[in-house]
């Protein structure tokens, strides 16, 4: 047997994520179709969101002052946002006073460049990472990979996603779209390529799977020289960063390496240490539905003799100042990424996180992503419409972001921008419609035509139509017009009901 040497694509250090850019996600009504058909995904999501919802309600109702807590959380975040410049300067001064080095990045490219340079300066070829939304947003892992540095995700779900060549589908339980046998397969196939192999007799029992991850990652933690984290909160008056987590991988990354680089969105700032008492009650109860998450780490720059002795903090804008410029839209910056709005959202429960084409899915993603990225792409223009405006998200949001109000606001912004660009087809259609409907005879003629079309098409629902009809029919079926219009039926003496007659006459299945 001879083997033929195939041209090998450049060897990657970490598993390749799926091809394509998140920004190229088709607009929401189109992209949901892919996911609506996935019954495994829908069942997992329903189970997950339902369970977390129930836990959340239970632990929230335990606190008699929950409403006051929410109001305090809202006010503290508003105070911070409205004076963000001075709080950031204070934060920087306190970090520096405590031995940290502070870097400022206006956009993703700059943030990635700063981190890559810092890691390269340490002369290492791998880093361990704590789950962090902002590093996903700036696609730091790929920037590191391109620079010849392997970035290892250490949160169990993130590890499943990374080893599975996949993207997260939920910010809290990112691998919720995978079931246990898929996780087992991924671990068996991939772990051995990148470090300690999974045991050959690995079962699909969650404790065994977690054990395999523990052993695989322990090796990486022990040798890691550089750790990369985000932060849930950055305290201006003391320079303290806070990471909230469950598994202990965060503590490992924050404690064992010699160098720690924390990438922090500028909106994570809170004014004082005391303010943490509000958020450390709001966050765990809203997020996992626990009274408290297993581990919370707080550190202030460098602690001599304890943990990393070189500490960097990268403060990232990447669109946040743009969000800040819109006095209504800026409310989205209060978000503490608890995911309660996702878990309660009927749209999210059915389509999952991938359809949103962003690292921030669900209701918060629908209002935040188009503000951060702007509304140039199809997916970003469609996101504010990815909601039925039922309002459940606003009721659960621990920092009282009026999400439906912001959705409507963003819809206006998208429509206004579109109007400015071209005299929409919609307006042309409306004009024609107006002309037809302004005269009874014209309207009657069109109705008759429609009825005849039905005879030709021989079905009673219209599926996807070619453009421009696709704008409506791609996401919804359209019932065919009746064979006889109401006007014609009325004129003919209306002895029977044309609508029910039509329904039973054709189409209905036994």
């Amino acid at each position, binding site marked *: 047997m001879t083997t033929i040497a195939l041209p090998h694509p450049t060897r990657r250090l970490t598993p390749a994520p799926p091809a394509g850019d998140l920004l190229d996600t088709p607009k929401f009504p189109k992209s949901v179709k892919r996911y609506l058909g996935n019954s495994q995904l829908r069942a997992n999501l329903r189970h997950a969101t339902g369970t977390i919802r129930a836990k959340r309600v239970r632990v929230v109702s335990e606190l008699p002052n929950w409403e006051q807590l929410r109001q305090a959380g809202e006010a503290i975040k508003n105070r911070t946002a409205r004076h963000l410049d001075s709080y950031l300067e204070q934060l920087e001064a306190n970090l520096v006073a405590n031995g940290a080095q502070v870097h400022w990045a206006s956009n993703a490219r700059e943030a990635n460049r700063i981190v890559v340079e810092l890691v390269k300066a340490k002369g290492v070829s791998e880093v361990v990472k704590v789950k962090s939304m902002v590093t996903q947003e700036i696609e730091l892992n790929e920037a590191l990979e391109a620079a010849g540095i392997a970035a290892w995700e250490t949160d169990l779900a993130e590890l499943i996603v990374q080893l599975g060549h996949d993207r997260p589908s939920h910010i809290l339980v990112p691998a919720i779209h995978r079931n246990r046998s898929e996780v087992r397969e991924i671990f068996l196939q991939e772990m051995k390529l990148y470090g300690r192999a999974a045991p050959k007799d690995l079962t699909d029992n969650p404790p065994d799977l977690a054990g395999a991850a523990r052993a695989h990652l322990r090796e990486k933690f*022990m040798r890691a020289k550089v750790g990369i984290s985000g932060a849930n909160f950055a305290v201006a008056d003391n320079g303290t960063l806070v990471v909230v987590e469950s*598994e202990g991988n965060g503590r490992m990354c924050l404690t064992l390496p010699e160098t720690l680089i924390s990438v922090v969105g500028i909106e994570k700032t809170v004014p004082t240490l005391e303010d943490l008492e509000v958020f450390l009650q709001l966050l765990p109860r809203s997020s996992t539905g626990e009274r*408290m998450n297993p581990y919370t780490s707080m550190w202030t720059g460098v602690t001599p003799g304890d943990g990393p002795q070189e500490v960097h903090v990268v403060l990232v804008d990447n669109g946040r100042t743009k969000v800040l410029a819109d006095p209504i839209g800026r409310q989205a910056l209060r978000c503490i990424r608890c995911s309660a709005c996702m878990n309660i959202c009927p749209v999210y429960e059915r389509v999952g996180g991938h359809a949103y084409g962003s690292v921030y899915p669900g209701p918060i993603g629908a209002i935040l992503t188009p503000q951060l990225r702007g509304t140039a792409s199809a997916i970003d223009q469609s996101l504010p419409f990815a909601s039925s405006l039922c309002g459940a998200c606003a009721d659960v949001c621990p920092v009282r972001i009026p999400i439906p109000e912001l959705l409507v606001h963003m819809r206006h912004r998208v429509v206004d921008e579109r109007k400015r660009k071209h005299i929409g087809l919609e307006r042309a259609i409306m004009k024609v419609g107006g002309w037809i409907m302004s005269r009874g005879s014209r309207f009657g003629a069109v109705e008759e035509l429609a009825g005849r079309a039905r005879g030709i098409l021989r079905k009673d629902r219209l599926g996807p139509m070619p453009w421009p009809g696709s704008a409506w029919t791609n996401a919804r079926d359209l019932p065919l017009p009746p064979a006889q219009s109401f006007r014609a039926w009325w004129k003919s003496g209306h002895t029977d009901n044309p609508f029910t007659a039509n329904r039973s006459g054709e189409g209905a299945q036994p």
Partner: protein
Amino acid sequence: MSKSEILARIRNSLVDVTQDDPVLDVPVDWSYGQATAVAEPVQLFIDRVIDYKATVVRAADWAEVPGLVAEVLAQAGATSLVAPAGIEPAWLAQAEAAGIELERDDPPLSHQRLNDISAVITAAAVGMAETGTIALDHRADQGRRELSLVPDMHVCVIGTDQIVTDVPQAMARLAPSLRQHQPVTWISGPSATSDIELSRVEGVHGPRTLHVIVVG
């Protein structure tokens, strides 16, 4: 350069803000550091810690601690124990006498050495009843952060006078430590994950078991 650019963008974005004093601009209606209505904080703390699948033993006074430490370690089958430099030496005597190999983290042990030791013992800074949370501020009797992280089992000794009602009171007690630049770690049960089909697994990366000795 980016700093001045970002700060300028922020200022441009906030032209609608006219009050310079953040406190006057946005009042926060909250009184900080308050005790909450918990009738029996110590009992609630114990119940909540047990809720997290940690074990709790109660010592009537500090004299009982050495015996309980030895007992807890023996029951868990621990063979070696690491202790921070500033821990009360009396707590360790009985365990050592019972044949547990004892190491002091002085000078600091390597990652690998800590990884090979079965258990760690620490004191604590604050306990929160409502949430069953233990806070360490990593002073000499608790040791550096790595110590209570890498070994497989964590034995934590806390006095009833350290237990407060809830998060606000705890924050008030911990703020001075944080202002002295001590790191702080909050621990609520052993580490846990629900990442696979939402089924809860205890003990992922941190200590797989947590044993709490409540004294007083």
